[in-house]
């Protein structure tokens, strides 16, 4: 039972991580938003699975909020943003796709090395997924620094948040509910703020290529 549960959580975590790697692979905004939505659904499913096995009611609520907020609401908002700010294509990233994929793979290996001591200590059946969550955090950070379009960076940030939520769930079976909700609201607020910032960038530069921010305008 425990080993099957462990396998399934690792499977869920791998799916979540794969969606994160898709951000590095695909170029279009629509593909990125789809990958983020799929990632949130996979994350919610993993949360639901842990909730079933541990019988934690709070985790159920977390899973439902995840599904509603990040699986449905945020992708809709993102799509609206994408429609408004134009260009369907990702700008040429700082690091080309093939290289960034290899770097993504290496980051996951790094995550394994970093979490090695924790895996030794932990006795939870879900521990095997933790390096994958850590890997997602690294990969999302890499998405944020290597992509030029502000929208992609926002998605990278949201994926980072997913990675943190996954790590918390796998490592501790969920942090206290109030903290969890606080984090959700934080992410939502951050998202709204970023939306406004992107709007301002668009207004000033008529493009959401963040490289333009390096130059002084007028």
């Amino acid at each position, binding site marked *: 039972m425990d080993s099957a549960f462990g*396998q399934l959580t690792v499977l869920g975590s791998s799916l979540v991580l794969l969606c994160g790697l898709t951000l590095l692979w695909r170029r279009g905004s629509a593909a990125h938003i789809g990958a983020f939505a799929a990632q949130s659904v996979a994350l919610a499913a993993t949360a639901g699975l842990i909730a079933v096995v541990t019988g934690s009611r709070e985790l159920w609520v977390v899973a439902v909020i995840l599904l509603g907020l990040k699986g449905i609401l945020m992708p809709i908002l993102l799509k609206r943003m994408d429609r408004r700010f134009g260009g369907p294509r990702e700008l040429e990233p700082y690091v080309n796709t*093939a290289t960034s994929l290899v770097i993504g*793979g290496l980051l996951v*290996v790094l995550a*394994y090395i970093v979490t090695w001591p924790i895996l030794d200590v932990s006795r939870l059946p879900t521990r095997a997924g933790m*390096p994958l969550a850590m890997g997602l955090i690294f990969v999302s950070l890499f998405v944020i620094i290597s992509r030029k379009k502000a929208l992609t960076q926002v998605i990278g940030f949201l994926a980072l948040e997913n990675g943190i939520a996954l790590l918390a769930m796998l490592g501790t079976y969920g942090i206290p509910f109030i903290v969890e909700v606080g984090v959700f609201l934080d992410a939502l607020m951050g998202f709204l703020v970023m939306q406004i910032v992107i709007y301002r960038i668009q207004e000033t530069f008529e493009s959401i290529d963040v490289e333009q921010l390096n130059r002084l305008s007028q």
Partner: protein
Amino acid sequence: MPLPTGYTVAIAQTALALLLAPGLVGLIRWLKARLQNRRGAPVWQPYLELRKLFAKEVVVSSNASWLFRVAPFVVFASTVAVAFLIPVLAVPSPFDPVGDLLVVVYLLLLGTFFLALAGLDPGSAFGGMGSSREMTVAALSEPTVALAIFALALGAGSTNLGQIVARTMADPAAAVSPGYLLAFGALFVVTLAENGRLPVDNPATHLELTMIHEAMILEYSGRYLALIEWAAWLKVLLFFSLLGNLFVPWGVATVLTPSALGWALATLLAKLVVLAVVLAVFETRVAKLRLFRVPELLAVSFVLAVLAITVSFLVR
């Protein structure tokens, strides 16, 4: 009635693979045609093509050297040799001590290498272009084949393909482990690239700007072309058997009784048909990638293979 020996079965399974390969490709073509609202050639069309090609005379460019004449035989022989080494119907095969996963990968690469040489040999512009592209793809996809199967080999503790199959049968939970699924994804993408399927190469056209495999064999005719085509079709079947038998090993015979072998044959056919349907649907849905984006796709599959190894090696 005496049971068939391992050697008889191994030889029979190679003969079977050779016989089935044109039919499999014909099935894929027919399915694709139906999916695209065409009537399509009958499934046995490739057999007729083979018969026609073997009967035709061979025309060889006056610039071509002996290499051009040897290459088809090397390509065909290396692919047939692979057929002896991979689990198609029964494990363990008596040829297991002869070669493992690494030998399989290098035999496949040997065929590709000679095909590329043969493309360069007559000095035609298309041939050289095709060879250069084929080498680009092969250099990226061959390591991924090895890595993806290594991920399974780590679990089995052996690079021997027969033992990997036996081990997965003994431990069914392993087949749904993330390492296996990631490796399956990686190997599937590589199957597309190695066999010149969409989105890497389009097997249905002779459009000069995009072709890879067809460009290399443009100068071939008659029985040489027949051998090369047959080898290419056999390669599709071998990759399908690898996908089917390594990841879903149930059905593969472990004892050489007639009933077990019959069941193995039936499951093999079922797996091939399922994979053919998957491939046909997939090829109908995707468009061909621009050549310079092919390395990105292969990088994806390489990363999948690396993750598969990481997951199965570091978490046990």
